[in-house]
């Protein structure tokens, strides 16, 4: 028990790293996923085929492989990356973690948002077109907001999965919650104490994020609730 209290500050420091990496990847992944989803529903082959290939690869392979491919795999191209001045980025486990998680969540989220876009009622799109909207305006004002509302519960699950998946970055030496727990337990042999403490912190984070996303869901659907204030 003592060891848990002793290492609590470091575990909480790890929690900050976990949240940082998750938040950045979710944000960047979201920004990437929206255009990817729009491209995915396009009828133009040159638009949807690359997105299909991207999501197929990233959803069909384990995240651990993707992290290793980017972090260790980039070493095989060190000379090239050095010549374009990117090597100092790929040398950093933190950067590779965020990159791998971003691409991974972008692939999953793009598929979720695609489902949302396809779930937008045709009548709304027709009405918007009748009002003279088209192209980007139509997507910005009508399709994307509606698609996000439809996709939100599934997207919440994806964010929770990403938070848990971020524990894998400890394998490439990032000191997140799992990384800190592994390091301290390896030195002190207090394995179950530390991993249980780490599990508890993850549980708190998961249910905290669930609560926040539920609040957002209620907010974006507020116009549907009649007289509930």
């Amino acid at each position, binding site marked *: 028990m003592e060891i848990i209290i002793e290492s609590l500050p470091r575990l909480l420091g790890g929690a900050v790293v976990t949240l940082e990496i998750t938040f950045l990847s979710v944000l960047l992944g979201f920004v990437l996923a929206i255009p990817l989803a729009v491209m995915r529903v396009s009828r133009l082959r040159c638009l949807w085929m690359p997105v299909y290939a991207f999501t197929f690869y990233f959803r069909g392979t384990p995240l651990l492989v993707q992290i*290793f491919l980017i972090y260790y795999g980039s070493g095989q191209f060190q000379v090239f990356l050095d010549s374009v001045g990117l090597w100092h980025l790929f040398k950093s486990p933190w950067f590779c973690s965020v990159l791998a998680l971003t691409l991974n969540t972008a692939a999953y989220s793009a598929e979720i948002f695609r489902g949302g876009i396809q779930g937008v009622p045709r009548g709304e799109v027709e009405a918007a077109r009748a009002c003279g909207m088209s192209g980007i305006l139509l997507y910005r004002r009508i399709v994307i907001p509606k698609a996000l509302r439809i996709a939100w519960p599934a997207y919440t699950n994806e964010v929770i999965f990403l938070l848990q998946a971020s524990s894998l970055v400890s394998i490439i030496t990032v000191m997140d919650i799992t990384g800190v727990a592994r390091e301290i337990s390896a030195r002190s042999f207090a394995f*179950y104490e530390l991993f249980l403490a780490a599990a508890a912190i993850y549980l708190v984070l998961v249910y905290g994020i669930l609560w926040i996303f539920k609040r957002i869901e209620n907010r974006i659907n507020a116009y549907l609730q009649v007289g509930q204030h």
Partner: protein
Amino acid sequence: MSFFDLHGYGWLLLQGAKLTLYVGICSMVLAMGLGLLGVLCKFSRSSLVRFAADTYTTVIRGIPELILILLVYYGVPTLIQDVTAKLGQPVYVSFDPFVAGVATIGFIYGAFSTEVFRGAYLAVPRGQVEAARACGMSRSLTFRRVVLPQMMRFALPGLGNVWMVLIKATALISVIQLPELMRNADIAARATREPFTFFFAASLIYLFITIGSNLVQQWAEKRASRGIITD
């Protein structure tokens, strides 16, 4: 053959893939068993049993797989050691990575398949259960003859998803040195200093497993809904 040979490490990858599939199938069987047990508990008449099942699914789904794998592989033996030492007779145990891996992955995805089976159970029309009960079947006979066969059909798409996530999660067992696909790719990558080549090759094997599983799932779903009239 030189392309598949990969400096002589191609076979190592294929051996790893075999173990990955083996681990995956064993864990899936365990997960489905736990899922059925879990769903029976979720609809149990005892509120204590229901509470236990709810705790199982909510807690397990909130903790990363990696933490649970490390907890089982490193934590449980030390816990047993500490407890038995307190009782005056220390017992030293260590887990085989295969057993620890299958147990943990099966235990985690047991929680997910419990939820899948729960949805499937609710999808079976209540009238049929009532009819079976009216014909004099006991609760367990009704479950075996009427509910279970239909549940399986509703559960197939969800179980397919669980399998897809599960087979990718087996890559994490490489952390406890089980020589499955990921671990062997790592060994080959270190030996040849060509990490990209080997991790990419490994990713293609995983992709191949995913595609194969997809085909099997489609076939199984089609087969399970023979004779079902839609619309």
